[in-house]
């Protein structure tokens, strides 16, 4: 599949490649830091890292315009960074502090940003899919041409509500791009152990939804496919499905004994297909220098360290926060 898209690679400018390099590296370093902070007990509960999948969200975010929306699962740190949310606020949410995007009340799996049109961060596998279609419903209803990216996993793709949503999304021609991040595993279950469908995107055909498979380790291929999908939606042609073939290097969450795949399989992917390495190589084959890239590495490290510092220094939420945000401020009747 990589070969299929090879022709699209050539015409990316150095600026564009540098932008992807920087954005993907930010996600990777951020996630490595989050893993460290988890090990130190500063982050608790579930923490699902995005390492390995960076090209998916960076490539697709490159297609979006102001007002486009995104919604995803618990594996959400990368999506938030890519849509421009402040790393400090994300890391502080991971440590459960008042400076976090949900004031410490949501945690790794549940963050939101009204400003960036990021609608979460959802913990129930499959549940964010109809929610994403609902966002698209609202845009269509209002008559604008905004598009919603609804991200979910290969495991989620077997939930029934996904197909109920497909049916309605096409029936009502909703401007939603369904992005299946096929990282080959749902916890310990390889895709092939969960379905006999040869591909996940093709299931959309049963509902009349167009789609395609994309090489998710190649940020330019992702970008190109995303562009096609978003144009389809903006033109009022209804939903589109992208099955993006990717890979997570780390465990499902922090507590994953990883007995379902070999070390070699992971190592091979990292060494031969890594998305960041691919862009790095392409940059160096062009007229970028090692020094230029080193400077970016350094800059990213600083951003991540600052975020980590902030996440440690930000105070825990005030205890009174336990009782806030249950109902909209000022809306609750006196005796509620």
């Amino acid at each position, binding site marked *: 599949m990589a070969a299929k898209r090879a022709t699209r690679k050539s015409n990316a400018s150095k600026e564009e490649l540098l932008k992807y390099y920087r954005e993907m590296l930010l996600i990777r370093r951020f996630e490595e830091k989050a893993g460290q902070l988890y090990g130190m007990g500063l982050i*608790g509960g*579930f923490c699902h890292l995005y390492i390995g999948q960076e090209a998916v969200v960076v490539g697709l975010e490159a297609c979006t315009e102001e007002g486009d929306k995104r919604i995803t699962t618990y594996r959400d740190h990368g999506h938030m960074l890519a849509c421009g949310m402040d790393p400090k606020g994300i890391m502080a949410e991971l440590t459960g502090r008042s400076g976090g995007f949900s004031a*410490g009340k949501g945690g790794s799996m549940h963050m939101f940003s009204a400003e960036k049109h990021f609608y979460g961060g959802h913990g129930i596998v499959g549940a964010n899919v109809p929610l994403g279609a609902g966002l698209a419903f609202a845009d269509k209803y209002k008559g604008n041409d905004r598009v919603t990216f609804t991200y979910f996993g290969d495991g989620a793709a077997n939930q*029934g509500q996904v197909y109920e949503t497909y049916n309605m999304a096409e029936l009502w021609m909703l401007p939603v791009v369904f992005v299946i991040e096929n990282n080959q595993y749902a916890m310990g279950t390889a895709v092939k*152990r969960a379905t006999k469908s040869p591909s996940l995107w093709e299931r959309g055909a049963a509902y009349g939804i167009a789609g395609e498979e994309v090489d998710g380790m190649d940020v330019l291929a992702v970008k190109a496919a995303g562009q096609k999908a978003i144009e389809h939606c903006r033109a009022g042609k209804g939903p589109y499905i992208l099955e993006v073939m990717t890979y997570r290097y780390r465990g499902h969450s922090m507590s994953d004994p990883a007995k379902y795949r070999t070390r070699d399989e992971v190592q091979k992917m990292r060494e031969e297909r890594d998305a960041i390495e691919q862009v790095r190589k392409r940059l160096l084959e062009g007229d970028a220098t090692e020094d230029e890239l080193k400077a970016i590495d350094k800059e990213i490290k600083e951003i991540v360290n600052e975020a980590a510092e902030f996440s440690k220094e930000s105070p*825990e939420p005030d*205890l009174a926060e336990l009782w806030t945000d249950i109902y909209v401020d000022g809306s609750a009747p006196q005796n509620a």
Partner: protein
Amino acid sequence: MATEILMPALSPTMEEGTLAKWLVKEGDTVTSGDILAEIETDKATMEFEAVDEGIVGKILIEEGSEGVKVNTPIAIMVEEGESADNLSASAPAATAEPAPAAEAEAPASAAPAAPKAVVSLEPDYPEGTEMVSTTVREALRDAMAEEMRRDDTVFLMGEEVAQYQGAYKISQGLLDEFGDRRVVDTPITEHGFAGIGVGASWGGLRPIVEFMTFNFAMQAIDHIINSAAKTLYMSGGQMGSPIVFRGPNGAAARVGAQHSQDYAAWYASVPGLYVVQPFSAADAKGLLKTAIRDPNPVVFLENEILYGRAFDVPKLDDFTIPFGKARVWREGDDVTIVSWGIGMNYALEAADELAKEGISAEVIDMRTLRPLDIETVVRSVQKTNRCVTVEEAWPIASMSDHIGSEIMREAFDYLDAPVLKCTGKDVPMPYAANLEKLALTSTKEVIDAVKAVTYR
């Protein structure tokens, strides 16, 4: 610069672990992603990866060491040309500074030691039975294995139950013993496989449906209630659903609002279901065996925090506990504390504390919520004249409310104080550590409630 490698926390509930094996030795150069060591938690053996590059300067904790606390330095990494020789092994841990506290500390409720005083009015097993220390996790597995050996129609189905050995390792070893005909991995499709389970129960099988947690059973609740609970009635008694829905329920440790709900009252309100919420390993085993044999649908609510707790379990070939029989853990005269499941932690700890102050509490573990052994509670309240209920679920329309109203109906004249409830707070579960602690009930709340009803 030398940096310490600290014993990592590898799961939401891990506090210590075994450093099973070092995969590097002193002097080795490692890069990010290399496996440094294998660490065993109570749930799994996990590989621990290097995050940065460097040289292993010194190994501080020998392999095979058990009970290594999270954040203990286990090795020292150095850079090229640096030596670790002059680094003291007892170097202070580079742990994170504690978070600036928002206000007064919430009462700490660290996991208490396993309760010792076991006074059961009507023991579930003959006196003198040999007891074996068993974790709740093992007890649940043993119960399933024994029933599967006994009855070929019993099978287990759920996400990650077979090859992965269970997301919380409850089904460890079952695939090996029973094969994939009887230990069935499902896709992530709760609504679908719960329905398939109910259908299979009509077809003459006895399914055990594991939900990775009961939070995900909300996807499937239609089949639990509309299909399993109501069909016997709707068919005029022709078609029962002998099925067990089981899995962890309630709060774990900082897993947020969508993963922390306690469903006790929801399911206990449904006629046609039996609902079990055990605390001890013996009860988990005896009641799960009963559940599997029962011809009715049973909702079996476990708790992740309790999985690793060890209790004495009677060594008997066939140990079952009937539904609807509470267990008295501790006899007392001044107040009755009623609880079940993990709430028993607070109840027993509070009773210990209260005893020191001369207040004698009787502690009752309901064990099953439907049917509910209200008689045992009423008998106790007739003696103590006061009652406090304890649970982690939300307060409104709770089991506590139901028990309180039953006591009022059956023992109104005996009450010297209103029945008070200690429950989780009326909020979605927050993630922040300080808020989560506040959102749950606590031993201190139980003690305060007891003092209020005893007017101390």
